[in-house]
């Protein structure tokens, strides 16, 4: 969608400098034409969806799409994973990807459900932090020298609940339903133990045996509870799992504001070096704020990205997207502005804006028609780049396709 331009000689030089490691978008030079203004594509796509906080920022920054990501869950696992990777490569591991949640590397036996689910922003940022580390190896096109790029990134988020009373009620109802299933399971388990003790001591034949009076009274009470709790005789593991999923669904259906933050750095190590931090070096930061209600969503995004290689270039983006979804139609509008914060040698890159609107209509149970209209504008040169896109999509599922994007 949109016009792809990579026009001026400085830009071509930039494209060359960035090479294949420029984010994960297609090479900015692939669609070069000779128009004046830089388009969104030169710093990666500039739809709001392209600017969302990266799930694994380190992978994104070095353009790595690893098929295998190590996810150690204990400090010991981390040590073993890193040691093995370094040992196999004799230094900085090649084409390695690791992702971990630092807080959850350790046990937290005193962290209760209530504390976790009602955590303050500070604690949510800690709970949700993930660290990503990745390397990717390649060969420099100009010098033919082999290298390994190393990226390190951190991501986290917090959620401010703005749940309506019915949504809060749904969460409470899901908690009570799961608690009831657990209590029924606990009563059944305890009752089985008591029955075994009663049989072992022969309490049914002689209730005066030591401890029998207590055991029989306890059994009677447990049977009362079992009857009071029971919707069915026994609770299966699958019923408990379903109860847990229902609780999760009730929680994520709440209206609220999700704010996510991420940052990443990368540097290059030449072949033969153990570990270095040479150019091109890159830094990036992301911030999203999304509000979600059942049929309406708003997402604001911000991103800064900087690359240094014999000079430097940096872009800052800000964008907002609004979505309204009905049962048969969806309407969305988005606006993104890109500033050139650091001009490359020779300068001349202009800021750009993009405004688009999309309408999607369900034509039947599985046929959807969408139309997108918009415009790219290079603010320091001539306006250019009308965007028009018509689409028809088919889907096999009978579920409603029109849905809000996740913040």
């Amino acid at each position, binding site marked *: 969608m949109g016009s792809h331009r990579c026009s001026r000689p400085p830009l071509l030089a930039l494209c060359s400098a960035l090479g294949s490691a420029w984010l994960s978008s297609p090479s900015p030079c692939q669609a070069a034409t000779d128009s004046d203004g830089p388009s969104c594509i030169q710093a990666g796509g500039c739809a709001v969806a392209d600017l969302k906080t990266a799930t694994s920022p380190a992978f994104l920054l070095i353009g790595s799409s690893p098929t295998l990501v190590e996810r150690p869950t204990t400090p010991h696992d981390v040590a073993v994973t890193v040691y093995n990777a370094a040992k196999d490569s004799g230094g900085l591991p090649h084409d390695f990807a690791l992702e971990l*949640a630092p807080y959850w590397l350790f046990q937290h036996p005193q962290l*209760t459900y209530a504390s976790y689910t009602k955590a303050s922003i500070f604690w949510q940022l800690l*709970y949700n932090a993930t660290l990503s580390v990745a390397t990717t190896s390649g060969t420099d096109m100009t010098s033919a020298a082999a290298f390994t790029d190393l990226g390190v990134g951190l991501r986290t988020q917090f959620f401010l609940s703005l749940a309506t009373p019915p949504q809060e009620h749904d969460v409470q109802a899901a908690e009570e339903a799961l608690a009831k299933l*657990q209590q029924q399971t606990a*009563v059944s*388990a305890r009752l089985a133990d008591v029955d075994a003790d009663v049989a072992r001591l022969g309490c049914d034949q002689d209730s005066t045996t030591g401890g029998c009076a207590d055991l029989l009274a306890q059994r009677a009470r447990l049977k009362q*509870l079992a009857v009071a709790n029971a919707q069915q005789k026994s609770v299966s*593991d699958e019923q408990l799992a379903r109860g847990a999923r229902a609780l999760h669904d009730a929680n994520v259906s709440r209206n609220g504001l999700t704010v996510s933050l991420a940052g990443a750095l990368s540097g290059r190590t030449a072949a033969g070096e153990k570990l270095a931090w040479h150019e091109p070096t890159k830094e990036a930061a992301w911030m999203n704020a999304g509000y979600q209600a059942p049929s309406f969503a708003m997402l604001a995004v911000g991103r800064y990205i900087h690359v240094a290689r014999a000079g430097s270039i940096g872009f800052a983006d800000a964008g907002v997207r609004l979505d309204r979804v009905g049962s048969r139609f969806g309407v969305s509008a988005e606006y993104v502005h890109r500033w050139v914060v650091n001009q490359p040698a020779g300068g001349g890159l202009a800021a750009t804006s993009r405004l688009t609107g999309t309408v999607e209509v369900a034509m039947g149970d599985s046929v959807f028609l969408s139309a997108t209209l918009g415009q790219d504008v290079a603010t320091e040169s001539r306006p250019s780049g009308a965007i028009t896109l018509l689409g028809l999509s088919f889907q096999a599922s009978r579920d409603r396709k029109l849905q809000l994007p996740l913040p």
Partner: protein
Amino acid sequence: MKKISYATSYKVGQGDVRLEVVIGDGQFGSTLVTVGSQVWEQAHDFDRVLGKGVALAGKTVSVTSIVTDTNAQTNQTAVTYRLSGGVVPLEHTVAFTVGDENDSVDYEASIVLA
């Protein structure tokens, strides 16, 4: 469902014996406690006085906690038992990491009050 057992004894004194059961790692759990003919059931964490030490001596406290992994960040689960009011306080944590999201664990503790 995986069953994790823990057994110990606890020397009571003259005063009130208090039992606290904490379900950790942000997971959702429910606890059933029995002592003699007494039965208590409690969603989430359990914290109450079981009785006077002299009345409880010789009885067994049975604690059954069903913990379901509802925390998407970790598959770790843990239950901490804390007894006080006896000669010395007792605290012990039992932990288990479930294989799959939403799995449940049956923690069973048996504490003989001496």
